[in-house]
């Protein structure tokens, strides 16, 4: 008899008849004499089965990351800091946008920037000397920033007296979308040289965005870019994000972005 669920007769260890098809791994359930649910698992390579006790969990796999993200958000809220998580593919113009953003923000608006890249501090170097705190985070083998990487910088590096924290994520349209950093606004950036259909090819990022920036609009005369098509693809991804068209280079549309930063800024 099975010691776990009491099935089978007393003389044998196991005598279940298994005439089902073992094309995939699977499990089935037995109710034990104690009323608890017990499962059997089967495996193609191991036709003999094992008995186990099932523990129900129903928990987000990223719950650890999410807990740290909540703590980050609490710290930011306590200090009246608004954090934005900027995500895009490599080369969409995140760093240029940040350079021009620092030039345009009013003097009384203080900013810290955390820039994520796998290697080098080239982006941090570009952003230095513009009156803001800038720190490079190198993720080396990782393709995204996570909440713990940001947590390490809060208080230790990010001054509690700033107004806005801008986080430039790793250039990648897939992985960063899954990790809450504790930001207040998720910014998806799409440049016009990438094609209008990016939002439906990478819907996770665009679906979760609070604002979508369509950048490098000064290049439109040289491309076959269809702005309405792009906007419709953004909506097809299920996104209700505000859409801002801009060119950091020419300055067109930058006012709307600066307004957005100012309005999301928390007032004491």
């Amino acid at each position, binding site marked *: 008899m099975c010691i776990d669920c009491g099935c089978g007769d007393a003389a044998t260890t196991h005598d279940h008849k298994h005439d089902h098809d073992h094309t995939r791994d699977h499990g089935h359930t037995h109710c034990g004499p104690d009323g608890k649910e017990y499962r059997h698992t089967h495996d193609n390579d191991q036709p003999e089965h094992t008995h186990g006790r099932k523990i129900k969990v129903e928990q987000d796999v990223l719950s*650890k*990351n999410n807990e740290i993200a909540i703590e980050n958000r609490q710290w930011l809220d306590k200090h009246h800091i608004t954090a934005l998580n900027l995500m895009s593919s490599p080369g969409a113009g995140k760093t240029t946008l940040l350079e021009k953003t620092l030039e345009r923000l009013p003097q009384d608006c203080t900013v810290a920037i955390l820039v994520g890249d796998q290697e080098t501090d080239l982006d941090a170097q570009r952003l230095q000397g513009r009156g803001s705190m800038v720190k490079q985070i190198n993720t080396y083998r990782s393709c995204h920033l996570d909440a713990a990487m940001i947590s390490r910088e809060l208080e230790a590096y990010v001054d509690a007296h700033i107004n806005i924290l801008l986080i430039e994520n790793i250039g990648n349209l897939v992985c960063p979308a899954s990790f809450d950093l504790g930001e207040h606004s998720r910014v998806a950036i799409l440049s016009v040289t990438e094609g209008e259909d990016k939002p439906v090819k990478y819907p996770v990022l665009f679906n979760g965005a609070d604002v979508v920036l369509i950048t490098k609009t000064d290049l439109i005369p040289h491309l076959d870019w269809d702005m309405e098509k792009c906007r419709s693809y953004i909506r*097809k*991804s299920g996104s209700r994000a505000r859409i801002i068209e801009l060119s950091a280079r020419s300055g067109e549309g930058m006012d709307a972005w600066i307004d957005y930063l100012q309005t999301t800024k928390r007032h004491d």
Partner: protein
Amino acid sequence: MHEMSLAQALVDQVSELAEKDGSQKILSVDVSIGALCGVMRESLEFCFPVVARGTALEGTLLHVTEVPLKAECGDCRRISYPEPFEVSCSHCGSMNLMLLEGKDFKLISLEVE
């Protein structure tokens, strides 16, 4: 490939739960991945045994259930199961949808000995 980080998070989470429970062996782990949670099943299945090697989860079976998007229409109130690349109501075409399911990556249960 962020599935490696996710597999690591899963292995850590399960190890912790099994240790708390005092289980000797973890036979299997059931997870669900939503269509819009950004996790690729094949990558996760590839990464899981790699990360599990040398831990309490070495040899543990991973069962993955894929959860499609489920949404309620804000206009006609009916339920749709849209594709992630076309999130519109299959009844009236509205894009005013509230996602009910399909955004989560969850650990559903584990089977221990």
